[in-house]
């Protein structure tokens, strides 16, 4: 009981730390990319008469492009889930003795149907590093956005010749985005009964988002500076374009660099979960079956990129069966509802196994996937390979390591590899 209270006290301590440790550098980290050139998008310098004033001609296009990229980046940031080790017993009816089931320590990122055991408390501290490198298959340090201006003469097309040929000018912006997260997760799972677990995941997140953009004006033939009439540029950057003066000299009118971003630290979205194991040790070919329900609370500040800003509800059906007391294939299938944005609702699935390699060392491998039936193309369907090792050096201690490798980097915001290390203690 003392250990249980200690664990609860630890949760409060982590929340207290997470709640007060925050950066003052950035207050709207989520909109870093969108606001690179200010909240109104790219504004050009007004052209002198007799030309049409051109300052707002790329505004809508740039706002839309930057906002879309911003959303693609920020909506894909998420927290991996963690399953607890199961170190219990099953019963040999013929011999009348319990049999240890600790031969395999369970997978790290997916779930087995078995529960922890009555009045058992499993506490895990895990560290995960996410260094995102790709968005929809494109390198984050070499993104390109092209902004097109509106129709000036109202003929419904962008003229390529004649006096309005400047309608075909474009702004090409090259962006370099550094986005990474360090997540320390405190995970506690408690066995209320032998078949019912409740648990909580409290993530402390440090997120760093830095973006640099270099925009340049081109004419339809690719000439820097855009269309010129009488040697004077129709479109040009100026003071109101919010270029970074440390990079671009005030005299530069055809290139405009900008940078933004910052770092934030705090509590992310807290997850409450419960698992009920409704079929176990049924014999024959029947696997152990369980249902897991989880709620992700909007405790992480969305603006600071620490949370999603909405409540997520998820249900997961779990089947697993141990063969030969060392090999446990498992399957998870479920659905997650994003109450804030129903297009982000997703089908979650995982298929894999965990196996005992040595008496105190187990290995797990899984394919973990997520499919958003109503989602846009960004991260609509992603699959990762998860490989993990668990080591039980002392009686109640378990060391976990895991890497998650994207199987397809052309979908969504992806890291090359996501490493996780952790230590777990079973009270």
């Amino acid at each position, binding site marked *: 009981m003392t250990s249980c209270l200690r664990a609860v006290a630890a949760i409060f301590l982590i929340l207290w730390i997470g709640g007060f440790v925050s950066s003052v550098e950035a207050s709207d980290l989520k909109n870093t990319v969108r606001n690179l050139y200010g909240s109104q998008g790219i504004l050009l310098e007004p052209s002198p008469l007799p030309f049409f004033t051109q300052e707002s001609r790329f505004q809508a296009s740039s706002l839309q492009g930057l906002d879309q990229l911003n959303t693609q980046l920020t909506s894909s940031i998420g927290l991996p889930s963690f399953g607890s080790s199961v170190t219990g017993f099953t019963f040999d*009816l013929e011999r009348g003795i319990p049999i240890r089931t600790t031969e395999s320590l369970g997978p790290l990122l997916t779930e087995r149907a078995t529960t922890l055991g009555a009045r058992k408390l499993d506490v895990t501290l895990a560290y995960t590093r996410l260094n995102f490198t790709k968005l929809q298959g494109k390198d984050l340090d070499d993104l390109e956005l092209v902004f097109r201006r509106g129709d000036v003469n109202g003929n419904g097309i962008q003229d390529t010749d004649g006096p309005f040929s400047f309608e075909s000018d474009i702004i090409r912006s090259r962006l370099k985005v550094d986005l990474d997260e360090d997540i320390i997760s405190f995970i506690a799972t*408690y066995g209320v009964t032998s078949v019912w677990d409740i648990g909580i995941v409290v993530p402390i997140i440090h997120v760093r988002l830095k973006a640099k953009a270099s925009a340049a004006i081109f004419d339809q033939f690719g000439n820097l500076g855009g269309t010129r009439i009488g040697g004077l540029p129709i479109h040009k950057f100026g003071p109101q374009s919010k270029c970074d003066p440390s990079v671009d000299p005030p005299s530069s009118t055809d290139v405009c660099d900008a940078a933004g971003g910052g770092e934030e630290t705090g509590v992310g979205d807290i997850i409450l979960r419960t698992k009920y194991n409704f079929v176990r040790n049924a014999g*024959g070919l029947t696997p152990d079956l369980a249902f897991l329900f989880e709620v992700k609370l909007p405790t992480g500040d969305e603006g600071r990129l620490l949370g999603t800003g909405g409540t997520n509800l998820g249900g997961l059906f779990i089947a697993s069966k141990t063969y030969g007391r060392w090999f446990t294939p498992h399957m998870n299938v479920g659905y997650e509802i994003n109450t804030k944005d129903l297009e982000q609702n997703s089908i979650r699935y995982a298929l894999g196994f965990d196996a005992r390699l040595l008496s105190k060392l187990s290995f797990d491998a899984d394919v973990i996937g997520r499919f958003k039936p109503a989602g846009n193309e960004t991260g609509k369907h992603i699959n990762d390979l998860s490989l993990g090792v668990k080591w039980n050096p002392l009686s109640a201690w378990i060391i976990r390591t895991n890497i998650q490798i994207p199987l397809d980097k052309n979908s969504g915001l992806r890291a090359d590899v996501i490493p996780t290390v952790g230590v777990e203690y079973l009270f």
Partner: protein
Amino acid sequence: MSFLTSRMTPFIVAVCIVVGVIVCAPPSGEAAKIIALKSADVDVYNEALEGFRTGSQGSTVIEYDMEGDFQKGKKFLAQLKSGPRPDLILAVGIWALQVVVEEVQDIPVVFAMVLNPTTVIGQEARNITGASMNVPIEQQLALLNKISPHVRRIGVIYDPSKTGGLVKQAERVAKDQGVRLITKAVASPKDSFAALDAMQDEIDALWILPDPTVLASESVQYMLLFSFRHKIPVLGLSENQARMGALLGLSFESGRDIGSQAAELAGGILAGKSIEELPFTTARKMRLTVNLKSAGKLGVHIPREILDRADVVIR
């Protein structure tokens, strides 16, 4: 601070619920104090504890899980000796009983969910009684007899160091029922093969005992193979063995009922009865599995009475 007030409210409520579940109300009153030492966290043991609690409503039952660790169990009992003496100790499972037998001599002990308890406590433990998992021998032999009146010779393989006492008792019961036990003693699982081959023309049925030596998986497989080869029905110990091919599987019905039997014994002790007045019990409710596929292969007709009584029929 606004973070805590605005975003943490639902979480704090949830944590309070968790704490509420974790923190149990302490026992109070002058009820009999029973320490329940559980061998490990196993469903069937938890069922037995539930059955025991239900049958011991007036008592305070404090549960301790030794998690399969004998040293942990011994340490707990050592701590127990330095505190207020309990009125009774309940040992759930064979490991808990083994620890209690070693460490406790002066407190009444009731066990539950133990197979072949005499192998652990001998015949002379004066402070111990309990509810075993064993199925009454009478019922097992009677079941074979009901399958076929022609079953007069029942083969048994056993390790004298494990189930010698059980076999002696079974021989007496068999004699009373007019059947004969053909026994072969073995010292290792490998001996089972030769023992079985030696009795192939001497027996009408084979009875698997809860004997750890005989229950090695290769021995059980050979027994089932032997059964099909020589068309000799096998009475197994569980539904699992029936699914593997035994004609019948007979086991205790539930942990809850064994726990309930243990509670009745504990109630007797707390009411002032001596241990001698309360002998070990065997399971009073049974779970019967009949494998009709095996019956077909063996050419055995299962009477309607048996099928009606069966909890599981494998077709």
